[in-house]
């Protein structure tokens, strides 16, 4: 039998990582990819929040004199055909992309939670109606729905967020509903009932907090896909309009004209999108492993 170094094995198992920071560090080590995702996300959130301080130029200010400058010390990522600093635009674009990602996820998530909770908790005809509505929403391809929605609402930041959020609702609601149904059977919910608690209070105090883990996991996974949906909408001409520097539009528009002549216009937004989505997915995966190993998705 090979000699076993208990210390090494225990360290690997995380036995020494107890409490606070050590635990976080340990989890980061265990989930290297997830930690990388978290770092990426943090960087993006940070840049989004402090965009005004990080960006060195006004992302909207146009200067024909410096149009299409290659990346240089002055313009780290070059400038676009309007002479706008690409780096500043990407930094500010983080705001837009995160606004779309977080906004639509939060909106779709919130409504989804309410709907899922209600329908799971009340069951009966409310549930039946909800089930059919979500059947309907799910049978329509997401992009088609988003397309029609943006066409209906007109292209603007809030409208794009709404258009992307709506197809999200049934997905979230289904997960929450399934969870609620499972939770409803648990003795601690019955115990709450038996002490005479009102249904609403049970739903909010006992059921909701316990659906949080799957919700967070779902939300991080959706975050990435909403950013991509916005990019696809932009590609089809229905994304977030100028002047907001949305990554999706930056990429899809320059992809057509500047792939070869000014590749930096294509590379950097492309990297930004992929990296953000990648980060969100990595982090989401790790979260799923940590929070809820049985959640599938």
């Amino acid at each position: 039998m090979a000699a076993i170094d208990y210390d090494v094995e225990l360290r690997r198992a995380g036995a020494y990582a107890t409490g606070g920071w050590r635990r976080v560090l340990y989890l980061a080590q265990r989930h290297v990819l997830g930690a990388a995702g978290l770092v990426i996300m943090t960087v993006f959130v940070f840049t989004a929040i402090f965009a005004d301080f990080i960006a060195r130029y006004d992302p909207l200010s146009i200067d024909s004199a410096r149009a299409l400058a290659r990346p240089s010390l002055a313009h780290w990522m070059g400038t676009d055909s309007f002479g706008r600093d690409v780096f500043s635009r990407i930094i500010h674009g983080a705001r837009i992309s995160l606004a779309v990602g977080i906004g639509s996820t939060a909106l779709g998530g919130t409504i989804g939670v309410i709907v899922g909770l209600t329908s799971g908790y009340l069951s009966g005809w409310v549930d039946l109606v909800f089930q059919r509505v979500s059947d309907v929403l799910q049978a329509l391809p997401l992009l088609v729905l988003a397309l029609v929605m943006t066409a209906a609402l007109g292209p603007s930041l809030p409208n794009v967020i709404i258009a992307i959020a709506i197809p999200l609702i049934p997905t979230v609601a289904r997960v929450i509903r399934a969870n609620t149904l499972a939770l409803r059977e648990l003795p601690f919910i019955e115990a709450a009932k038996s002490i005479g608690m009102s249904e609403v209070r049970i739903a909010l105090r006992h059921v909701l907090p316990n659906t949080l883990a799957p919700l967070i996991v779902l939300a991080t996974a959706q975050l990435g896909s909403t950013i991509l949906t916005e990019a696809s909408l932009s590609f089809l001409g229905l994304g977030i309009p100028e002047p907001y520097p949305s990554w999706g539009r930056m990429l899809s528009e320059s992809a057509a004209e500047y792939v070869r002549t000014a590749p930096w216009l294509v590379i950097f937004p492309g990297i930004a999108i992929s990296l953000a989505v990648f980060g969100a997915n990595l982090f989401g995966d790790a979260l799923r492993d940590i929070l809820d190993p049985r959640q599938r998705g």
Partner: protein
Amino acid sequence: MFAYLVRRLFLMLVTLFGISIVIFLLLRIVPGNIVDILFAAAGYVDPADKANLEKELGIDQPLIVQYWHWISGFLRGDFGYSYVSEKPALQEILPRIPITARLAGLALLFSVSIGIPLGVISAVKQGTRLDYALRVVSLSGLSLPSFWLGLLILTASVAMFGQMPIFNPNPQTWLEAFATYAVPAAAVGFRSAALTMRITRSSMLEVLRQDYIRTARAKGASDAAVNYQHALKNAILPVITVIGIEAAFLIGGLIVTETVFNIPGVARFLVEAIRWRDYPIVQNLVMLIAVVVVSANFIVDMLYAVFDPRIRYTD
């Protein structure tokens, strides 16, 4: 079983009815109709001409009448005429369906034949470098905007071969046929393969924890037998569900891919029709897509019963 089928069929009809209402109303909520679009290019709208045209197309009638007109036609197989081309809508839609169907089928095949084995490998080798590598690759698949991936493929093939796979309605050689369908299918399939792989992986990991896997080991079964005969058979269930849901997503992905690769399939056609507010095309096409999606889900449910004997559709 029979009762179940009837019930499912009934629910499918309810869903389709819901979809017909949703798409019908959505289209009317969207501002502007075909007349506005036609006149837009002219730079002005002549109210009299507009009224005439609306009357001719019947879009001045009350919504109920319009809906009834459409849906009764749809049920009779009379899809009306495209507002734009003025040809029978069916004649516009039908020839495009096989193209998209081929593309979607290939993409699905790609997704399943790559995604499932890689997912199994990644789960079995959980925590190894191989697992990490596969996960990173699959995640990058999920992180690339699909139009971007498509353009990259096109650009690369022009740069490297001076050639590009553009749609060819009558491929002469095997290679042409391959380029026509396989490359775009791979571009869409990559994403859904990544998704399939992830689901397979997590489903496998879950199944590998189960007691009956331990039982199989206790019988002396080899790793391969345990992984593929015992685990995969159980793990495949959620994968099937996701593939069913994928059907709807695939259509969305195809919109972009058909645009990038310039494939005259129904997905891109739908987008164009929405742009033109070509109600007969959009409504009927969406209904057809919905029928496909709903049937796909139905088939998935049936497959469930095949793969999982515990499920008997009696209720």
